[in-house]
């Protein structure tokens, strides 16, 4: 059960900040519906994070969350477009089913997130192995690291994929 104090605090935040936040997002995105969705998501994110900003910091805090969400949205749109374009280049017979498309796009978006959290070397190693089909020795040569390091990085990246993909 949520603590009534917290609930009241959230209600206060929402009633004081939803309006300007939505207007601000709308200016940035120039789409009313997306702005409303993102403003909503911003509060959800705040609630889930369990942090309670001090009243004088609320505005800055919400703006920061909203910026993060806009960046995510922007990334997602870019990835979606890249995927759509790839689909269009396929011969019709090879076009995946709508269900497969949805899974693939979701995987792409997740993978982007996973890789973003990894150190550059790990990410590089993983892409060279999984998407450029290089062997571990080739990767080691390419990046000037040992094969043992390649294995270590692959394990780290694969673990992250297991958790998030």
């Amino acid at each position, binding site marked *: 059960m949520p603590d009534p104090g917290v609930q009241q605090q959230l209600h206060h935040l929402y009633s004081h900040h939803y309006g300007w936040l939505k207007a601000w997002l709308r200016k940035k995105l*120039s789409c009313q519906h997306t702005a409303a969705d993102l403003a909503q998501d911003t509060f959800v994110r705040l609630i889930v994070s369990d942090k309670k900003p001090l009243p004088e910091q609320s505005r800055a805090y919400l703006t920061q969350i909203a910026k993060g969400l806009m960046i995510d949205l922007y990334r997602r749109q870019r990835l979606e477009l890249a995927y759509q374009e790839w689909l269009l280049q396929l011969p019709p017979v090879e076009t995946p089913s709508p269900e497969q498309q949805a899974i693939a796009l979701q995987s792409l978006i997740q993978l982007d997130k996973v890789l973003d959290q990894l150190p550059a070397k790990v990410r590089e190693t993983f892409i060279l192995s999984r998407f450029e089909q290089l062997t571990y020795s080739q990767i080691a040569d390419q990046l000037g690291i040992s094969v043992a390091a390649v294995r270590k990085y692959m*394990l780290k990246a694969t673990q992250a994929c297991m958790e998030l993909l």
Partner: protein
Amino acid sequence: MNQHSTINVVTDYSRLQQEALEWQVMLWSGEVTADQQHAFEVWLSRSDAHQQAWSEVEVMQQKLQLVPHATIGLVKNRLPSAKRRRVLQMLGLAAVTGGAVPVVRQSDGWQALAADYRTHTGQQEKVVLADGSELIMNTSTSVDIAYSARERRLVLHEGEIYISTVADHGSNRPLLVQTRHGTATALGTKFNVRLKHHETRVSVDEGAVKLRSSNGLHDLTIASGMQAGLLTGALSKVTANGSENAWLDGKLVAEQLRLGDFLDELSRYRMGVIRYDQTVANMLVSGVFPLLDTDRVLQSLLQALPLRIDYFSKYWVTVHAS
């Protein structure tokens, strides 16, 4: 007692998951020996729990396989580290903007999205700044305004702007436009700045503008009626202005322009993508076209040239030879 054995089972299973991951990493090496392959099969056949742990890894692996190679460039492109870029260039894997993903244009990424002023595709907007200077923003443009006690700085992240400056009463702060290629400082003036992928093009209508490359090594003053480009660490030659600023009147002016260049230009004003066959790219177009009605422009091309236009959807247009 019972509780104790449950914990044991859980620990064992997470150990199996870890082992399954390690096998996967080994199998991905591209250099698996017959012995290793055999050892893996022995491991896998040891129990149902082993197979269960392995099938979880397989689900992940199948999802990875669904991610098209063609889209991974974007994921990779997120990384600005210079060293990484060099390695990728060496492998011929870099450079994703432009060709591969046409809708993502010459922008500074998320900064463009979070900028102070922003226009969307096909939108133009006029902004009056605090000192009375005027800014007209062309399609898909984002600008940050960074006025300080010392200077009036505009940061162009993406797109194109036309600036009419006014004297800064009292403090005489210089007005300058910054892009990733360098700065353009107004010397009492009207001028246009367009950020492209490889250069920032500055053309002067009135007065003069001083260009300085981002490394600070090169500068150049351009007079009215002239234009030049800021490149990374260099400046281009000065040439006379053409009809670059026709966008201010909502027009696209083509004088014997290659159709490919024309369509690239037009696509700046249109949501989605315009693609074209190389066979039509070298046809020539002349005329004055209304920028903000790109559908009409496409239709009028059909009357002038032997073309066929396919619409996959409103956002996916392909131009072929008829």
